[in-house]
């Protein structure tokens, strides 16, 4: 999600974001990736596993992106993520990894609603009300963001009839 697309109103932003109401990606700091040393024979197995996980992230994300979510599913923010809202945008800090992420204004509204007290259907309804966007668009973009949050382990998903996903 590139927040710069959302400095304007949702309609203007949608055109720049390829028709999406909420962008599909989290904006993540890339410092560690840029600084990653080359893997050598001295690199520990643990580090190799970590780096493999990073490399596979996009693939896993695309696989999860095709998994269906239901309106009665509940998404909950991780307690190991600290967040701060600044100028309407949320900056999230994963206290386990030190990675931080920025959500645009719509993403921030969703993040604040992911307390586990209402299901995704209710979150989509609130978005429709607040931003005058059609439900299908709101739902698809909400699902994309929730998948990204879960892939980054910033949130967990609970489905009433399927347990924790």
């Amino acid at each position, binding site marked *: 999600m590139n927040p710069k697309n959302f400095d304007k109103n949702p309609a203007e932003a949608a055109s720049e974001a390829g028709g999406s109401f909420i962008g599909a990606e989290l904006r993540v*700091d890339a410092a*560690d990736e840029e600084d990653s040393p080359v893997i050598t024979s001295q690199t520990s197995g*643990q580090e190799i596993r970590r780096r493999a996980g990073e490399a596979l992230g996009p693939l896993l994300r695309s696989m999860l992106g095709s998994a269906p979510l239901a309106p009665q599913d509940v998404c909950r923010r991780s307690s190991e993520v600290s967040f701060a809202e*600044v100028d309407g*945008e949320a900056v999230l800090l994963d*206290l386990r990894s*030190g990675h931080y992420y920025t959500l645009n204004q719509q993403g921030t509204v969703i993040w604040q609603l992911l307390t586990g007290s209402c299901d995704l259907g209710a979150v989509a309804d609130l978005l429709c009300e607040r931003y005058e966007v059609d439900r299908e668009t709101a739902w698809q973009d909400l699902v994309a963001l929730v998948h990204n949050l879960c892939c980054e382990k910033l949130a967990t998903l609970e489905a009433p009839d399927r347990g924790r996903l």
Partner: protein
Amino acid sequence: MAGFELPFDIHGEPLFLKTGAKAIADAARDALGGFAVERLPAGAPLEIDLQAADGSEDLQPPRSTAVLVREVPQVAGSVPLSLYRDGCRWRFDFGGAGRLLLDPVLGRVTGCLAAPGCPAPDWAAGFVLLSAIELLRTRGRYAVHGAGLEREGRGVLVVGASGAGKTTACLSLLRAGYRCLSDDHPLLCTDGDGFQLLPFPGRIAVTQRTVSWFPELRAVEPEFRSDTRKRSFPLDRVADYSWGERCRPALLIFPRIVDWPESSVARLSGARALEELLPQTLLVLDPQLAGAQFQVMSELVRTTPAYRLHFGEDVTRLPEIVDRLLESLEV
């Protein structure tokens, strides 16, 4: 073994350094000399026990219970850093050059260096500084990788990675009457009324290119010391340069060197400022401490205007730009 026990008072926080190596004692005076005292102030002291490595045992790999958390290729000069969590303690391994073991609960760092006197005078000082900065974090005093300046009680914080132009900005403002808090790592803390920017006196490290912009530095060039990557000098050797006092931060500046004749500034949103600020101050070790610091930095960008400085070739014009920004804030 003859030893050195050095007490420091870092803005009210007692810190005690113990070592058996003269090179490390000298490094401690170099890194923390501005805070040296005869006796420790009251309160539980932070402790650094840093020794010269005595045989290969001191630099053995960490215990099997330690978990590798992060690897960074370039820290403290040119050695790699591997960071391990071992229970509630954190181990910084600098290849075969040395290691530090931080216990944030006890407020203590123990460590050893393979060759504390090599390769340059600031080498061991870097270990002392890292130890002190991590310990101070546990007391709510946060070092920010930036230049801090003060004038008439108002603080300007110039934040950026190495090479972003912090020291050049610092010197440009110093010659215009601003006073220095640090050219590399001032401290930030909160009090009942908001934030305080605290001085961290030390040597000023410059490149040859920086010297070329400020003719007044040529007069003290014979006193320059060759450090690991740069050359350094004591600030008070230059007429009209002086140390400042604790103050309230009024302005955040994030420089980016550009190949333009003229510098310019653009307002940064709070979220963008926080994105720029976090990598220059926050090393996530203990989650609780990191969470607390994150909230402090978030509040800083909420309450302090931030600007991107496109730092052009007119480096000595910076005071004019900063003065104008500060005046606009008054309005």
